[in-house]
């Protein structure tokens, strides 16, 4: 066998993996194949294959990961619990009077919905259906209307509960509880930056989003009671954790259960409930499969020693940490044009996380930053899932127009990212307080 440095072997593995993914091989199988081949290369046929055979069971029988199906189920049930429509109605009455107020209202309604939902594509589908018709009726620019639904949906992965943050916590062995708490404030900050951008643009160009006036204060307050399920579910999850009734993992089950109760109260049909469960099972197995497939690849990287080598190499560079961090951001922007979400996390973190740690950045903080980067990725052309979802609900608004509509929000996200980088306390402060 040719004597190659671990760095070289690891890099070859990464290149092959990416090539297979680009050639259309599913991430799980591409990861498993590259990983097994790499293990065979490093430790021999029999040992390599058998080592790969340990990974699937290990990722499947995992207590912390068992929270995933709970968050997924919450997402599927939330629509049937009537949480969307009431949130949007309240947001319209409270924020409609602002320039572009309906769009701002959508942002805050998605933020509220995000507090009970775990995945961005769910939020995008739901709000494209509920909010876009209302905005178009109020003579809003259709790019803005579609763009705000797509961009707003990315808040869902930041505001707890969040499937993406759980996956991050698993890969990097960080406390899931801390990550979920940490996402809250940056989620609000993102929503506020979105609102500012919308207001500023519509103030300069009133025809983008005309004001809606005429709601009285009593009408505003009347819209609040029907939003109570959201607050109740949040309250249940937070109180159960705060008073120590439930660990974060168990709180997922409690959250799903309470959303189910609201869905039943709201008259969910048996067939709908069954479909929710079947779809949750499908999404769950998809996520588990990609996790163990890529874990085999990660094992290979572990044996090659490449991640540590890269971390050592990067820290040895004669560059300030912030420059390296910004370079990493740029790499994620580029990668994000075609990759996003869990796939992006699983494929990049084994190499990037040790680098971030060796640069001395806070692991919880980086999790939040990465979710933000993934949000941008899911909005950026040519592949942007939430944009596609919005277009699917509203085929009359072309994908091209939605991509144009989200540009201001990508700009807003970059501002948020800059703020989070300049003031990491926004993330770490609340985690330390919660300690």
């Amino acid at each position, binding site marked *: 066998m040719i004597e190659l440095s671990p760095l070289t072997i690891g890099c070859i593995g990464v290149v092959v993996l990416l090539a297979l993914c680009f050639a259309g*091989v599913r991430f799980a199988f591409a990861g498993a194949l590259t990983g097994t081949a790499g293990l065979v290369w490093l430790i021999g046929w029999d040992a390599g294959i058998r080592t790969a055979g340990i990974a699937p*069971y290990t990722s499947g029988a995992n207590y912390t990961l068992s929270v995933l199906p709970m968050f997924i189920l919450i997402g599927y049930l939330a629509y049937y619990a009537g949480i969307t429509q009431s949130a949007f109605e309240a947001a319209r009455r409270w924020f409609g009077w602002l320039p572009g107020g309906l769009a701002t209202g959508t942002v805050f309604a998605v933020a509220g919905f995000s507090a009970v939902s775990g995945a961005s594509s769910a939020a995008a589908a739901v709000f494209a259906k509920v909010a876009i018709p209302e905005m178009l009726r109020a003579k809003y620019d259709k790019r803005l209307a579609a763009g705000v639904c797509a961009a707003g949906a990315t808040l869902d992965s930041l505001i707890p509960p969040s499937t993406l943050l759980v996956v991050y916590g698993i890969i990097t062995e960080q406390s899931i509880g801390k990550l979920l708490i940490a996402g809250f404030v940056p989620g609000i900050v993102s929503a506020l930056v979105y609102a500012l951008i919308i207001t500023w643009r519509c103030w300069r160009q009133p025809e983008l989003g005309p004001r809606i006036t005429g709601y009285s204060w009593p009408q505003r307050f009347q819209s609040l009671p029907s939003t109570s399920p959201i607050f109740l579910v949040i309250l249940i999850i937070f109180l159960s954790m705060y008073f120590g009734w439930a660990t974060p993992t168990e709180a997922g089950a409690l959250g799903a259960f309470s959303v189910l109760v609201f869905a039943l109260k709201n008259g969910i049909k048996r067939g709908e409930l069954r479909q929710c469960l079947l779809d949750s099972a499908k999404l769950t197995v998809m996520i588990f499969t990609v996790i163990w497939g890529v874990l085999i690849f990660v094992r290979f990287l572990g044996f090659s020693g490449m991640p540590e080598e890269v971390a050592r190499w990067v820290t040895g560079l004669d560059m300030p940490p912030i420059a390296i961090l910004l370079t990493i951001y740029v790499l994620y922007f580029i990668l994000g044009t075609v990759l996003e979400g869990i796939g992006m996390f699983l494929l990049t973190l084994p190499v990037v996380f040790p680098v971030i740690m060796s640069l001395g950045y806070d692991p919880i903080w980086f999790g939040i930053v990465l979710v933000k980067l993934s949000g941008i990725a899911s909005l950026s052309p040519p592949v942007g899932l939430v944009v596609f979802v919005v277009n699917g609900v509203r085929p009359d608004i072309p994908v091209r127009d939605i991509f144009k509509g989200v540009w201001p929000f990508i700009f807003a996200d970059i501002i948020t990212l800059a703020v989070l980088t300049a003031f990491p306390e926004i993330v770490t402060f609340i985690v330390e307080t919660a300690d």
Partner: protein
Amino acid sequence: MRRADAIQSHLEDGLNLIAALAIFFLMFVGVVQIVGRTFFDFAIYGYIDWIEQASVLFAFLGIAYAQRLGSHIGMDLTMGWRPSIRWKVELFGVVVAIGIISVLVYASFTNFLRAYSIGDSTMDIRLPTWPAKLMVPLALSLLWLRLSLQIWGYLRMIAHPDAEPIAVPKLVTIETQVQDEIAEVLGKPDTR
């Protein structure tokens, strides 16, 4: 072949239903654990161990089902291409998959066999792990069968481009992918 596809599909549907019920059940068990511990000083004996072992149900049973529907996470950069080329791209993806799954059926079986013959258990209440470990090669075998059906299906589509597709997922286009996402959240048009 149509029959093989139908039988296998029934099996996959059944297993995915079991996975779905496991998720539903897990939710109730979690609530019982919280309520029991908080109000009655009662904790489910070996809660973590039971959950860990049961997780295998939803982690693996639906794997062939998801493959049949073409749902496993991937990049789909070829969505805009001509069907005649896309059948070949899909075939390549499935051939790669069946190659590695063949290896992993064997590898995960040896993982089960070690636990079964030498011994292995969970940490707290010492549940034997071999039943859960056996689930992995079984689920992967089913996936292997599904993949071989798909290889046949794709080869058939490449040979007879105008035939009606059998045993292959509908070609994922941006539209179908998105319609699936939407149907999942908002319900299928016919069920609403």
